[in-house]
């Protein structure tokens, strides 16, 4: 008998929370982006675990979609971050305030 499914759900919850906290406290856009990816992968883990627990393939199919979409998001995201970096701006989201009232 393997590890029960709810253990994986706890793990995915912890990973998701770590990612969310990372997004809130880190200031480098690249690191924030990595934290978002951590959140998405936590979701993948949850989908895979639930899928196995329920014996249905929907969750696995969903995880496939999440993987593909997050790859697309990463490519677009890195491109945008590189673009900002090349404009010679500090890599700190707290200083992104050209549009404050």
């Amino acid at each position, binding site marked *: 008998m393997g590890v029960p499914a709810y253990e994986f759900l706890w793990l995915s919850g912890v990973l998701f929370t770590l990612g969310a906290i990372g997004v809130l406290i880190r200031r480098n856009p690249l690191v924030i982006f990595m934290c978002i990816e951590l959140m998405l992968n936590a979701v993948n883990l949850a989908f895979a675990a639930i899928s196995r627990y329920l014996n249905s393939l929907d969750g696995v199919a969903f995880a*496939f979609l999440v993987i593909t979409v997050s790859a697309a998001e990463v490519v677009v995201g*890195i491109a945008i971050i590189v673009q900002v970096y090349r404009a010679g701006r500090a890599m700190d989201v707290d200083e992104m305030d050209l549009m404050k009232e």
Partner: protein
Amino acid sequence: MLSDYFPLLIFLGAVVLFGLLALFLPAFLAGSRQSAAKDLPYECGIVPRSTARRRFSVSFYLTAMLFIIFDVEAIFIYPWAVILHGLRWFGIAEMGIFVAILLVALAYIWKKGALEWGS
């Protein structure tokens, strides 16, 4: 139940011990001679031409990103391949559309020069 794993524990212990021995024993048994070649990242293989801490061309990232995006699409081809026999021509046609869309994307990045290296 747990006792079944006892041999595994012994094996693990032996592995760690051997690793440590191999690490420290030569220092006592063999002498130590320093030379420039020994400080290289790899003692054999390609001789490094400059320091590793230098900027990479942005082309590396571009290529890596393009690789990821096309590579991940293969995720959908695996489950398709498993049931292709059952799907017959319908499956071939569906995957044909999928790959055709990817080909349009490939044609686009090709024409835009994203596959050119160092120009």
